[in-house]
């Protein structure tokens, strides 16, 4: 039933439209049909009137002929044919409906005529109607003749009707009872006169007029192709007791065309005037109007159908929308009922209208418990007035409020809930409902509390451990500082006795050189002591430098210096060693004017160390190359490349560590393992970088970079932070 109810408007509309269209069609068809019959009836009536008028037009000339017979009879002088002819011609002067007037003997021989050519021609006395009667001397209508007059014509018969292209006439005979012997007056009735008269009223297109003798012989017709003398439709005019003076009929004509026929039987003569109206012609106007009406109705119904289709489509669309809305409503109701969260709907005054199952389960209240009551029944009393005021203020301002709230269940227990309240507005923007969605978060709160407790405990543990580690770190750092200070102090303290040792070794060596007696061995001893002492002094200097660098106590005097003098100076310092080893030193300046900010003495120390290592580890008579120039924007580099054993891949990363030596160069010994570490500290302290690598053609290269522009403190700090911990 609901489905039927839903589709009712469109069905009713369709039914109404169909009914209207059908009614319009039926009304139109019946109206036009009725009009058709009215037109036919009107045409038949008009044809009847015309038939009567045509009959009158025929009867009057015949009556004149009849009357002229009396006139001639009174003045008949049979012995004077010329005078008779003149008399007859005079009668014809105003009678265009008669072609000739003749007088004949009772046996039919013409003895006087208005047309002299007719004399001695014979009349046909057998065929005229009505048949001759002694009691009557009225007009008798003969069979039509073909030809202009009796002299040149012949009587027709149904077997030999007149030719279509020939003129003809109808003989009209009247017996004149003269005093001597009877005389027959013969008038050649001119059919053309009547045909012209009738054709003016009814054109050949419109129809035709036939004049028929009562014995169904066609006398003449307004149609050329209807031959006079031929047999006429015997069913038209009933004879005998069923004879009618006039009548109408519908049916097909002789040529199969539907015609409307009216006839009139002449009152005094054996003649019937028949009017045939072409039905198609008669209905032409009606047909045109019918077509117009049909067109208008068709257009109207088409327009109505189009409008109905549009309306129907809109109706169906609204029905679909309604169905969709209902489906959405059902879906919403299903979602409402099956939602996991509790849902509570109130009116604008916070009076509960509906709750879902989840809310009932959550709160313990049934629908009956809450519907019609204010939501304040759920209040736990845990929140003050300010809480609720802020909540409603937010809802009014933003249309929604989300927050945690503590409500009271029906059983009195408190329940923490995550509540979302949405304001539902009507089409005028007024709040019509509030929808509250409740999520019971009591369990979540309990778990969160537990987690919070665990987190707090863990934090305590972490704090304790951190404190321990910080203590250890401080201890380690203190130990490192103590180690550095120890090394510094020790280096410093050892340098003083070492100076004394060296001084005394030099003195001993000098003294022993003065004493030539067996003192060669002693000199050798002193020389060994001095050599060992100097090596130890170098080691101590390195340790001292390193400790200062690590402790940050070494002051670097960073200024701008050109590179070329520095490189040339260091090269000159080591020229002797290079010469000893027959090595070749090549200086390649990509940018001869290149310069950088650096501590000149310390940078010379770096370059000296690196070039010294190259001389030391490169084979004799090999080549060493120093190359310098700009490496990138704002940075210059200095690179020392040799063709020595190179650096083992595993050593490349740790070769700059303290007390580390490359595996390939260990065999050469003599190193403290502090040189490269010091180099790195100096370079990093100037904001540069230092790295080592192997050449593709063999040997190693060491490269360090320096700032071409005055480095900021930040840049110096950044590079310093990248140094490895020294602990």
């Amino acid at each position, binding site marked *: 039933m609901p489905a039927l109810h839903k589709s009712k408007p469109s069905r009713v509309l369709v039914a109404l439209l169909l009914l209207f269209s059908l009614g319009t069609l039926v009304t139109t068809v019946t109206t036009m049909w009725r009009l058709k019959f009215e037109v036919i009836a009107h045409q038949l009536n008009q044809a009847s009137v015309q038939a009567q008028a045509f009959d009158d037009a025929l009867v009057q000339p015949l009556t004149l002929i009849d009357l002229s017979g009396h006139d001639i009879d009174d003045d008949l002088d049979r012995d004077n044919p010329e005078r008779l002819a003149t008399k007859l011609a005079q009668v014809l002067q105003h009678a*265009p409906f008669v*072609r000739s007037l003749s007088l004949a003997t009772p046996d039919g021989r013409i003895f006087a005529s208005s047309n002299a050519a007719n004399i001695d021609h014979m009349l046909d006395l057998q065929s005229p109607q009505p048949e001759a009667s002694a009691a009557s001397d009225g007009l008798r209508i003969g069979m039509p003749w073909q030809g202009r007059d009796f002299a040149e014509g012949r009587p027709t018969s149904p077997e030999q009707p007149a030719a*279509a*292209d020939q003129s003809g006439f109808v003989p009209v005979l009247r017996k004149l009872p003269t005093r001597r012997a009877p005389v027959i007056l013969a008038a050649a009735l001119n059919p053309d006169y009547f045909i012209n008269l009738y054709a003016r009223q009814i054109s050949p297109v419109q129809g035709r007029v036939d004049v028929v003798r009562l014995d169904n012989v066609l006398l003449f017709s307004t149609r050329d192709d209807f031959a006079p003398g031929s047999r006429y439709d015997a069913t038209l005019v009933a004879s005998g007791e069923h004879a009618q003076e006039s009548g109408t009929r519908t049916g097909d004509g002789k040529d199969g065309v539907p015609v409307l026929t009216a006839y009139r039987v002449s009152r005094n003569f054996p003649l019937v005037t028949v009017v045939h109206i072409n039905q198609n012609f008669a209905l032409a106007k009606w047909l045109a109007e019918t077509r117009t009406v049909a067109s208008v109705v068709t257009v109207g119904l088409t327009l109505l159908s189009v409008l109905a289709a549009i309306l129907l489509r809109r109706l169906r669309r609204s029905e679909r929308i309604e169905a969709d809305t209902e489906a959405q409503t059902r879906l919403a109701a299903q979602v409402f009922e099956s939602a996991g969260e509790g849902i509570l709907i109130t009116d604008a005054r916070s009076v509960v209208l509906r709750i879902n199952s989840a809310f009932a389960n959550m709160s313990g209240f049934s629908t009956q418990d809450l519907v019609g009551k204010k939501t304040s029944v759920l209040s736990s009393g845990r929140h003050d007035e300010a809480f609720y005021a802020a909540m409603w203020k937010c809802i009014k301002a933003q249309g929604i409020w989300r927050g945690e709230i503590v409500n009271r269940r029906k059983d009195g227990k408190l329940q923490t809930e995550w509540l979302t309240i949405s304001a539902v507005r009507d089409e005028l923007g007024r709040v019509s409902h509030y929808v509250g969605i409740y999520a019971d978060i009591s369990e979540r709160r309990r778990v969160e509390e537990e987690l919070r407790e665990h987190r707090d405990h863990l934090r305590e543990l972490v704090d304790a451990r951190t404190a321990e580690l910080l203590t250890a770190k401080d201890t380690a750092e203190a130990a490192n500082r103590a180690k550095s200070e120890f090394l510094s102090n020790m280096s410093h303290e050892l340098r003083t006795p070492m100076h004394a040792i060296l001084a005394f070794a030099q003195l001993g060596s000098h003294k022993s050189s003065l004493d030539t007696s067996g003192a060669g061995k002693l000199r050798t001893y002193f020389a060994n002591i001095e050599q060992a002492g100097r090596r130890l002094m170098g080691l101590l200097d390195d340790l001292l430098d390193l400790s200062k660098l690590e402790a940050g106590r070494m002051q670097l005097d960073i200024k701008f210096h050109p590179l070329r003098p520095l490189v040339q100076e260091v090269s000159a310092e080591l020229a002797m060693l290079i010469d000893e080893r027959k090595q070749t030193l090549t200086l390649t300046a990509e940018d001869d004017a290149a310069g950088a900010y650096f501590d000149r003495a310390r940078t010379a120390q770096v370059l000296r160390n690196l070039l010294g290592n190259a001389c030391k580890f490169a084979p004799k008579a090999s080549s060493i190359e120093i190359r310098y120039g700009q490496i990138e924007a704002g940075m210059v580099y200095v690179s020392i490349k040799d063709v020595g054993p190179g650096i083992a891949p595993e050593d490349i990363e740790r070769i700059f560590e303290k007390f580390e030596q490359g595996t390939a160069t260990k065999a050469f010994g003599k190193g403290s393992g502090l040189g490269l570490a010091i180099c790195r500290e100096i370079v990093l302290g100037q904001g540069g970088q230092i790295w080592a690598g192997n050449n593709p053609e063999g040997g190693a290269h060491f490269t360090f970079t320096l700032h071409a522009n005055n480095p900021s403190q930040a840049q110096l700090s950044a590079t310093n932070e990248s140094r490895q911990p020294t602990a």
Partner: protein
Amino acid sequence: MRLALKLLLLLFPVLACAEPTVLERIQATHLLKVCVWPEYYGISFRNPRTNTLAGIDIDMAGELAKSLDVKLEFVDSSFARLIEDVTTARCDIAMFAIGVTPARTQFLRFTHPYLQSDIYAITSRSNRRIKSWADIDQPGAVVAVAAGTLHESVMREKLTHAILRVMNTPYARELEVQSGRADVFMTDFPYSRRMLETTDWARLVSPPGVYHLTPYAYAVKPGDDAWFERVERFLAEVKSDGRLLASARRHKLERILVAE
């Protein structure tokens, strides 16, 4: 003797005026007598409903009288009586579109033509024999003409097969056709218009081309040059100043107007 001669000389003009010209007589009597055929539709037709004459020649006769500054009198005539009426001075001039034929030229003096018409045939609408001009001169066909008209002489000459029937009056020839005793009667353009406009049984049969063009003019008695010249001058004036054309248009005769 000298006195007698002087008297004779004085009387000579009087003797010369013993036969006054038509123009002099008109001016003397202040009356212009014009012969018309009152059956000539468009030319000189007397409307039986009002008994008033109308037509191009009624207009022109009025103009001629006006130009002569004399009164006007119409004298009923016909083509049969035309020559007699003009030569016996029954009228001063015949103004009813008289066809210039050799027979008439023997007795009448014609002005320059002002109309020109071919010959047309009128038959009955219901006539089954005559469908076109070629059906007229056929064996068995009967052609009616009015006696004395140019059509009588022309058709007598042209017909070879058809029977020519000469009727005494124009009406008689119409009756012959209407009653079926004749198939056609021959007439000119103005009369054919009358038949078509005033009867409902007549049907016009036109020649396919030019059959026999006849110029129409005014006729006066021969031998009176002054009168003839005066009429010729009048005709030239009405041709040139458009009065003839306007009248021809009024009576729907501009098709047959000779304008030069």
